[in-house]
């Protein structure tokens, strides 16, 4: 059996990224779904941009933007004492940007398809906007939340080019499973590559299967 540390690291990265994106992506998707602002298409386009650049190129720009010599990188060093690049935190920042469209787009369409009527009904019952959001909008868009979270999680697990560049393949710190597999292939260690890939596929299938199975049960019970 190969060393499984990269698998746990990938899971941690995908978990943290999904949580961060749920917190950041939800208000953004909400705003995009309800605003009539003229800059909305601009923000929508920016949100989709991480899909355009090849991941290694995107990773290269993260190196430039987050490096210790830059404003962001320097700020991070001042606050935490550690460099942002070649660290787990750096991987999280890069993954949040890289997976942003996978969180925002399903949420936005869920919010849009819900429409304004349920919220207006809640408002007539004197629900505050925040209350209406959590007790009306969130339950009504739960499928959107599940889809967005699953896509974000899976996309981050499979992430490769960006983390290879920003993370630097450091064992125990930034060597996630996709990089470990790539390294086994590139160093001709095919047997270890097969093992890790099999572990990853079985694990990913199990998680996705459980999520989709639960989603269906959720729908039957509530709907």
């Amino acid at each position, binding site marked *: 059996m190969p060393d499984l540390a990269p698998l746990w690291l990938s899971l941690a990265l995908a978990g943290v990224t999904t949580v961060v994106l749920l917190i950041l992506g939800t208000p953004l998707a909400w705003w995009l779904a309800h605003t009539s602002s003229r800059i909305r298409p601009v923000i929508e386009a920016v949100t989709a941009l991480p899909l355009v650049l090849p991941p*290694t190129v995107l990773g*290269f720009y993260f*190196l*430039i933007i987050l*490096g*210790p*010599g830059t404003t962001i*990188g320097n700020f991070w060093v001042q606050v935490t004492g550690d*460099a942002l*690049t*070649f660290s787990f935190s750096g991987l999280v920042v890069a993954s949040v940007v890289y997976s942003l469209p996978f969180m925002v787009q399903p949420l936005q369409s869920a919010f849009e398809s819900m429409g304004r009527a349920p919220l207006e009904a809640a408002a007539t019952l004197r629900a505050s906007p925040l209350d209406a959001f959590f007790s009306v909008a969130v339950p009504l868009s739960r499928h959107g939340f599940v889809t967005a979270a699953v896509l974000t999680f899976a996309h981050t697990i499979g992430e490769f080019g960006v983390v*290879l*560049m920003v993370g*630097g*393949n*450091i*064992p125990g710190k930034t060597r996630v499973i996709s990089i470990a597999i790539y*390294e086994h*292939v*590139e*160093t*001709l*260690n*095919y047997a270890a590559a097969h093992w890790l890939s099999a572990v990853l596929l079985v694990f990913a299938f199990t998680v996705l299967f459980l999520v989709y199975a639960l989603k269906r049960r959720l729908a039957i019970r509530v709907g």
Partner: protein
Amino acid sequence: MTKLTSRLCCLLCVLSQNVNAEEALIAVATNFFNSAKQIESSFERSTQHQVTLVSGSTGKLYAQIRHGAPFDAFLAADQERPRLLEGSPFGVGNSRFTFAIGQLALASARPEHIKADAQESLRQRPNGPFAVANPALAPYGAASREALQSLQQWSALEGDIVLGESVGQTFAMVATGNVQFGIVALSQAMNPVHSNAVSYVRISTLLHESIRQDAVLLSHGKDNLAAREFLKFLRAEVTQALLLDSGYGVE
């Protein structure tokens, strides 16, 4: 009493050794990673130091070093990147040296395709794709093209050539039988794990510019004893013998 004294001595010994023991993070070009791992284990057996190896392509590792990667030393696949680092704030001046010289092999998954020498094998080659590492990206690729040009086979092959992103990818194309022929690193072809999958014949080093692989101490590891000792160990006789056995040339 004497027993106690000797135990104390032992303890002191261990403690003092641990005080001197350091850890280094060493960036290694992927093509050298397997050899580097062997060197690492014999290095760690003979010293108190610990090194962690990080593999990547020479170009990516170079970009990472220039953007603050915490590597203490760099074992590249070429001379250019260590030279650039040596002349920059990221490398330590006068620390660069050639630790290995790469060699090429013509390889195939089918033993009957490999004749007595490379020239003969190329002349009798079957039609079909021919794998070479991308000359623009991989030093082994540039040397492969030179060798084929010296053998006056490059133009005949040109339409059949498929490019691997690295010499590792090129080897995979050959070892999986997806291409009949390819030019790979001799060290890959000689790797005992793949002796059943691949047959090969050496390509003379006279046919191409030598693939000199340089190492350089990085500013991050300037005062790191483990990194300095590891670089010294690369030049030790025992290491050079190991490299010769694994398909590299040495100075």
